[in-house]
């Protein structure tokens, strides 16, 4: 039984690592596309005297995907800011309890937002984008996928915070822009 549990953990760890790698490259890809599309727009306007409407539209869609996927990445890097000046003085056991107490409403919110985004995707099957007539479910789909990944990273961050309730709070401040 113990061995089985361990192997499940190992497999789960591998799946998570694989998922993170995919997310990482998707984020880089969307960001890169965004930058190139905007630069192409500038070059198009000034060098070829040609206005490229589709560049702005697709760049915005890439931004939506990039940001929603990176929300989970930010969770993993502990970049989501919070006011921790008041909780930092608390003893470790209470801090541990608080991380769990906090996670519950957060997951509830993510759940509500994911369910809400399914409604949007349904509408997106009949809507199309103004310039390229892209079906709108394509950008809307970023919501449930990004938020599910966000929730996963939130749960994983609980493990880290349980082990080191104070250290992570310090880290988050150091990394914020």
């Amino acid at each position: 039984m113990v061995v089985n549990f361990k192997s499940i953990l190992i497999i789960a760890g591998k799946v998570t690592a694989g998922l993170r790698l995919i997310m990482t490259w998707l984020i880089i890809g969307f960001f890169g596309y965004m930058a190139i599309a905007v630069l192409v727009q500038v070059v198009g306007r000034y060098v070829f005297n040609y206005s490229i409407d589709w560049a702005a539209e697709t760049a915005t869609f890439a931004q939506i995907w990039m940001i929603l996927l990176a929300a989970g990445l930010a969770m993993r890097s502990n970049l989501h800011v919070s006011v921790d000046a008041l909780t930092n003085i608390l003893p470790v056991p209470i801090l541990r309890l608080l991380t769990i107490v906090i996670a519950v409403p957060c997951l509830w919110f993510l759940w509500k937002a994911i369910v809400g985004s399914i409604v949007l995707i349904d509408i997106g099957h009949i809507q199309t984008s103004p310039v390229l007539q892209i079906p709108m479910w394509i950008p809307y789909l970023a919501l449930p996928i990004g938020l599910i990944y966000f929730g996963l990273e939130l749960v994983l961050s609980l493990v880290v915070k349980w082990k080191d309730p104070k250290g992570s709070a310090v880290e988050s401040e150091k990394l914020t822009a």
Partner: protein
Amino acid sequence: MTVTLIVFLILIVIGTPIVFALGVSAALTISMMDIPMSIVSQRMYAGLDSFTIMAIPFFVLAGIIMERGGIAKRIIDFSVALVGWITGSLLLVATVAGIGMAAVSGSGAASTAAISSIMLREMRERCYNIDFSVGLIAAAGTLGPVIPPSIMMVVLATTSNLSIGRAFLGGVAPGLLMAFAIMIACYVYAKRGGDVYRDNEPFSLRRLGRTFIAAIPAFIMPVVIVGGIIGGIFTPTEAAAVAVLCGLIISIYIYKEIGFKAIPSMVLRAAAISAAVMMIIGTASVFSWLIASQNVPALIADLLHEATNNPLVFLLLMNFLLIFIGMFMEGISAILVMVPVLLPIATSFEIDPLHFGVIVVMNLSIGMITPPYGITLYVASSVANRSVLQVSRKIGLPFSLIFAILMLTTIWPELVTYLPDLFLPNVIID
């Protein structure tokens, strides 16, 4: 509505990430009212569905490229040649470098990290008071959000429907005055401090020229960004993308400090930082929509108008409120939570929205050096291995001088509006 606010405050106090504190309290209110829950997802999507706001990830990435690409070092070298011969030299150098970094980067914390990691060692070697030096570098970091380009100004402009170009220009004069105030703090402290601070290098015109030439690529950035926006060549988003391209060319081909291999990690970092900011924009828009639909700003405005009709009194009250909020909350989230409530009240007092906005940004920049939560204070003291508490004891002098500039800006709206009216008089929105 009371429920929304109480839940929000409780969540904030127990340390919930702000993005969730806003989302949860808004979603809870919506679930109690007769509104479909999909409005939450819709608003979050709408917050990201904007070409203008794309300036944020680009400015963040440009800032990271400059932090890692050797631009900070050149700016500091040039500052040493420029003011290194005056009493309190290194303190003045840190301030001038702060102006330079503010003009190339969009955030305060990144430039503070760069300046303190390069300068603190020499300050220690020359026996400068380390706590004052740390406080001063942190204070120079407050210039970041006020002097363009600035991520905080982009967020401010998009939440209050102002032109980003005008907001950028509005920060120039107050930002430079803040820098001047910090320099006075350096000089006054160094004069009283004794011989340690008079250990200067003589002025050399040749060195000034040499370091200036090395720093030219860095100075091209603000010219391209701000000049491009003022001249109507670029939209702010395009200017930010061009800044990324320029930063890469300068760091890879001119300064040769990073290679192409460094790009993915910088992009990832920029993506994560932007996501942290922009997800808050999404949940804050649900929250502020609820606040607005309940007429909260109008209620507060009525209450205030019963007490006074003087706009100056309102602005002073607002300054104290925002300084207090800045002690606990990070600037961008504070803008997203507070501006939708405060702006309608400000306009009811007939205050110019741009003047109001720049004052908000100044307040929240000052919040970066006020303990317990002050980001630049935190960054600089952790580089120096000092506690925020130790450093805060020495922050009084720079703080009060910057505060004086805030007061001056509060009573003198033209300080903010003169440059935007001169260069971008007819621009309403970018």
